[in-house]
């Protein structure tokens, strides 16, 4: 296990390094000049050159890159071109919104999807099994922003139960308000995420239900719940967990839509502004942190799978045999 962890860590670092190169280069390939955002229309060529110099965008790309990398290794995400304020604190402030939002939505989605998916599979021949499958299909087709708008119209504008958007200025220092403002966004993400999870849970359960080992366990006298509990769930959860990892990562990255609909000051909205303003340090910072998060989620999902399924321990690691 120790060697496996080391290997995974090395893989993580290499992935991060590669991602940072790709990130850096891709951003510079985009059309547009960040100096435009800093100078007014009346700016002379000298002023534009001065603006470029002040943000360092006139230096050769390799130099800019090594500078950025140097900052990164000391935990500094650099300084925004546009606001000339440090990016790091901004990113961590935004994470205070995005991380609770994503995690709560994720947990809610799992809580919805696991029982519903199981029932949809186990009772697939009944009418309500079919209805559940149908609803999950529908859920997948619903765009997140549309669902968000509907929920706002119903629960905020008409009923007035919850705020239509925004996040309290005092953040988590006003916990009740903060929670209230996250309810609708969390539900929005959870419904959409849950719908697609239901399908995975359903098909994983179906595989297990039709498996030889379950039949064997039943034949040896185990009751269905007991057989399911001892053998079925464990086996069904392996594929589901890798999907969970992917879903969590994509929700983190996809939060931009929900954050925009609900006017939440999260990472996604920071990214959107950064892109619009050619604010490379902000975009790089957000994407770097997101990449790190996605890699860590992948790592965690992998680890959990290995703990659940001993067969996997022989693979990947090469050392546990």
């Amino acid at each position, binding site marked *: 296990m120790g060697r496996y962890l080391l290997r995974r860590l090395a893989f993580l670092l290499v992935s991060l390094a590669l991602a940072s190169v790709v990130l850096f280069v891709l951003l510079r390939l985009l059309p547009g000049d960040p100096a435009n955002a800093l*100078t007014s229309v*009346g700016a002379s060529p000298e002023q534009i050159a001065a603006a470029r110099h002040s943000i360092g965008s006139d230096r050769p790309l390799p130099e800019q890159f090594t500078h950025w990398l140097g900052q990164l290794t000391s935990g500094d995400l650099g300084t925004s071109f546009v606001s000339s304020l440090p990016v790091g604190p901004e990113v961590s402030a*935004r994470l205070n919104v995005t991380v609770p939002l994503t995690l709560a939505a994720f947990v809610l989605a799992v809580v919805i999807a696991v029982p519903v998916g199981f029932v949809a599979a186990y009772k697939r021949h009944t009418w309500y099994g079919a209805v559940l499958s149908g609803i999950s299909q529908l859920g997948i087709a619903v765009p997140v922003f549309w669902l968000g708008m509907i929920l706002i119209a119903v629960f905020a504008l008409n009923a007035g139960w919850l705020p239509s958007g925004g996040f309290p*200025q*005092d*953040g988590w220092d006003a916990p009740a308000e903060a929670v209230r403002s996250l309810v609708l966004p969390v539900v929005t993400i959870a419904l959409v995420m849950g719908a697609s999870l239901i399908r995975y849970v359903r098909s994983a359960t179906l595989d297990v239900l039709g498996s030889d080992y379950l039949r064997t366990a039943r034949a040896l006298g185990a009751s269905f719940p007991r057989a399911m509990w001892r053998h079925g769930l464990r086996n069904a959860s392996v594929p589901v967990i890798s999907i969970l990892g992917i879903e969590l990562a994509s929700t983190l990255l996809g939060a931009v839509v929900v954050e*925009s609909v*609900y006017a939440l000051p999260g990472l996604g909205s920071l990214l959107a502004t950064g892109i619009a303003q050619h604010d490379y340090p902000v975009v790089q910072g957000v994407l770097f942190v997101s990449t790190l998060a996605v890699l860590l989620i992948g790592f965690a999902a992998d680890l959990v799978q290995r703990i659940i399924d001993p067969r996997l321990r022989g693979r990947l690691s090469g050392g546990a045999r």
Partner: protein
Amino acid sequence: MSKNRTTRASLYGTATVATLALGLTACGGGSGGGSASSGTWDKSATVNIGSLYEPQNLDNTAGGGQGVTEALNGNVYEGLFKLTDDGKVEKLLAQNHEVSKDGLTYTFTLRDGVKFHSGKELTSADVKYSLEKVIADDSQSARKSNLEIVKDIATPDAKTVKVTLSKKSISFVYNLSYVWIINSEAKDLKTTEDGTGPYKLAKWTRGSALSLDRFAGYWGDAAANKKVVFHYYKDASALNNALLTNAVDVVTSEQSPDALEQFKSNKNYKVNDGDSTTKLLLAFNDKAKPFTDVKVRQAVSAAIDDKKLLESVWGGYGKLIGSMVPPTDPWYEDLTDVNAYDVTKAKKLLSEAGYAKGFSFTLDTPNYDPHPTAATFIKSQLAKVGITVKINTITPDEWYTKVYKNRDFTATLQEHVNDRDLVWYGNPDFYWGYDDKQVTQWVEQAEEASTTEEQTELLKKVNRKTAEDAASDWLYLYPQIVVASSKLSGYPVNGLNSQFYAYDIKKKG
């Protein structure tokens, strides 16, 4: 999704043009609009203001942007002079000022008893520091180019500031209304402040909100409310939802006409149709054929039904203008009759110019609202007189490089947001290339005029001449729409150049 995308694009556009605007010239500002309230109001109310313009940072000489003007100008920071919401210049921190006979030396006496939020008393050294901050090499202030005529700043005593100019500038005092007087010892101005205004900064949470508390040591009349919070939104519909759920009391500038109906029909809200200073221009390249010909420009102007365009974009809001001058500029004159909509006349002018069969040109169109709509409209209008328009959609970045910097265009659409920006027609090197020796001279004379009457007289001539020459086609003046809860009164309705004075806002309990 498309709604979100559009909003984001137009936000970016607005930001670009705000920068633009700042570069373009001049100023604006004011307070004290809204409906007069009857009855009592809550002196300890919190006023929640919804805005699409978040500050980049809190320093207006370091790229703070339009949002920092909206939130802090007049509220947290004050100038020697202020611009009222109807465009007048009034004394603020200056008790008095005298101008020397040659018009080059201005002597300002400062008001007594003015304290910064930190407690320090205002002195002439702070004024000198603040002015120098605006004209410093690294300053990104919009006023920088206007104030570069400042040659020397002397502070003979703590209450007196003597400014010597390198040449006469009638707009100097007006430009000073944009210079924030800052404590010369203040630090970290990008995230904190030290001004003299009726509010001090309580908290700025980036990406979310900025709150201001009533300043107990204010020299003037205390603010009519205890606290104001600017809430920032990126999406116009999220902002409207906030207003509908009472999360905000007032929206500083409503950008989507579609949303207005729900407020207009609801007695809990008041929709204010103010005068903005933002003009939508069909800007010809006056140095490129066929727009080198006055008759062609006049013909194009006459062939477009501006009224119909305004109606389709803004419904009943906004104004028609016949020139670059909005009603809040001192030299405003109604020139909508010059080159007014007249297809027959347009056809006649075209044949006189030798284009009886029309011609075709490319219209560089910024990709955010309302330009694509306006371009399509113009295309169909000009088709009726035989002119073929090729619409070339470009990003704000491309516009800046292709049109503004390289002058590589025949005609373009753009909004120009500042007040008093008629004077750009006096600059033959400006992107649209209008070059008239007489106009250039008038603009120069106006700036060196001794009295504002003289200045006004000369700029009226410029106004009329550029309108007659159809230097550009001024399609319409944007409305400035402030939507507020009917519990509020005393808010600015014109919001000139993004100012939003909050201290007169009264909220009924």
